[in-house]
């Protein structure tokens, strides 16, 4: 098999999986909407709390006006939609119940079907998200004036965020190969992510030292950076540097996932499946 042939087949695999996900998730529109309402409440809480503070402090806090907060947290909803990936809990189920056996006998790494499936779901998620964004914008009146290069950078950065978070959560999920009591570890991970990714508040509202610590972690490239790429005042070179950092974390994540996978798969034994 030559190189271009296998690449084509891989693309075909991705395309087919994405199409399947799109059709499946459109069938469950109502379920998807329920999911999204539950999700949208979270940024609305943050938005209301921080706009209240901004108004009480005479119009802005940490450089953010209520309108800027509105822009931040409405873009947040799209970024959050983009970085929902296969949860580590699904890895837990897959490993504990032995369903992984079936996926292992396929001639392709199971991670590919995860990425493809969720990439397809994203298409549905973005379409279903539009009315929410419109509604929230009418209520909260965001101040959003992106330049064309910010929009381009934003488009790439949300897919970068998707890939980085896929790697991170796969690494986390693979812990289940060694121990199945993973609930508390997962919760701890999500708590740290919440605080130092820009999901809870824009990073500039955090104390200086927290921002310095956060710089060593990949989390802000999955949340804060994509949002600020569109909302903030970043120059083209800053945006490029950010996308470069994302690429770096993607490569690092790929290498780690592959490495961990090699060790992990030796741990796996299952009956049937």
């Amino acid at each position: 098999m030559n190189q271009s042939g296998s690449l084509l087949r891989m693309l075909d695999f991705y395309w087919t999986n994405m199409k399947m996900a799109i059709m499946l998730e459109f069938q469950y529109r109502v379920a998807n909407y329920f999911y999204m309402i539950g999700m949208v409440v979270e940024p609305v809480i943050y938005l209301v709390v921080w706009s209240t503070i901004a108004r009480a402090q005479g119009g802005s806090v940490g450089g953010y006006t209520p309108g800027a907060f509105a822009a931040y947290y409405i873009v947040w909803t799209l970024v959050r939609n983009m970085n929902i990936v296969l949860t580590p809990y699904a890895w837990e189920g897959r490993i504990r119940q032995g369903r992984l056996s079936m996926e292992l006998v396929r001639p392709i790494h199971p991670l590919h079907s995860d990425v493809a499936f969720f990439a397809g779901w994203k298409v549905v998620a973005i379409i279903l998200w539009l009315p929410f964004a419109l509604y929230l914008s009418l209520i909260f009146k965001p101040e959003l004036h992106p330049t064309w290069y910010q929009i381009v950078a934003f488009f790439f950065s949300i897919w970068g965020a998707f890939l980085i978070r896929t790697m991170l959560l796969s690494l986390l999920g693979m812990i289940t190969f060694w121990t199945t009591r993973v609930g508390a570890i997962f919760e701890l991970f999500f708590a740290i992510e919440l605080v130092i990714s820009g999901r809870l508040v824009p990073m500039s509202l955090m104390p200086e030292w927290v921002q310095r610590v956060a710089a060593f972690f990949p989390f802000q490239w999955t949340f804060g950076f994509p949002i600020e790429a569109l909302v903030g005042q970043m120059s083209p070179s800053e945006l490029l540097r950010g996308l470069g950092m994302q690429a770096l974390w993607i490569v690092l994540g790929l290498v780690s996932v592959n490495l961990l996978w090699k060790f992990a798969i030796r741990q796996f034994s299952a009956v049937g499946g």
Partner: protein
Amino acid sequence: MLYLALNYLRIGILNEFQYRVNFFVQMGQSLVSLATGLIGLWLVFSHTSELNGWTRPELLAVMGIHILMGGLIQAYIQPNMGRLMEEIQMGTLDYALTKPADAQLLVSIREFRLWQLTDVLVGVIVLLVAVYQYHGVVGIWQSLAFIAALIMGAVLVYCFWLILTSTAFWIVRVDEMVNLFQGIYAAGRYPVGIYPRWLRTGLTFLVPVAFAVTVPASALTSRLTPLTLLGTLALTVFFIILARFIWRLGLHNYSGASA
């Protein structure tokens, strides 16, 4: 009736005692969520001295009640309703219906997750710290009103959940409801007064987050008028009747799968 509930509770506890390590896992999770809550509160108060008229100890009390009520919901209400949902889907609800006890009672008491009560414990501790830091009076009337409001809040959440679950008789796929409820319940971490009117109304009458958390907190901090408390009582009675009615309606709609 009480005897039946206590018996199920006993079985639930015995069942949980088989998995004692889970206590520590649960405790770890409770502490993690406490830490994130405290960080959020600390961030808010590093930029302001009060939020919409609520001071730091008062908001801490709100957080304590939020955690406490969340623990009760996850230990008792949600597991029962989750099981009910599943049984409606699978058609195995027949087993419960053929038992010689009131079906609504039975489906509401069968499950109990003892270790989820770690959240109740954490919530009570946070609440005590908040009361200790609070400068106003917490007298006998405030405490009584608080306890009454807390009980009514829990009953309202139960009624809400039963109504939600009963919709499974008509729409089968309702798994996402749990997610939806948890998302909305998170809004209770702050007093509902800070939200815009449309959201406040939703959090009061659509999903009773206001009654589960904000009303008890208001009772504790002397913000509650006797009239509001009376109104809560009336609403609670109304919801009990409504939940019963919708449950019966759904049951008429149910046809078993000859399990």
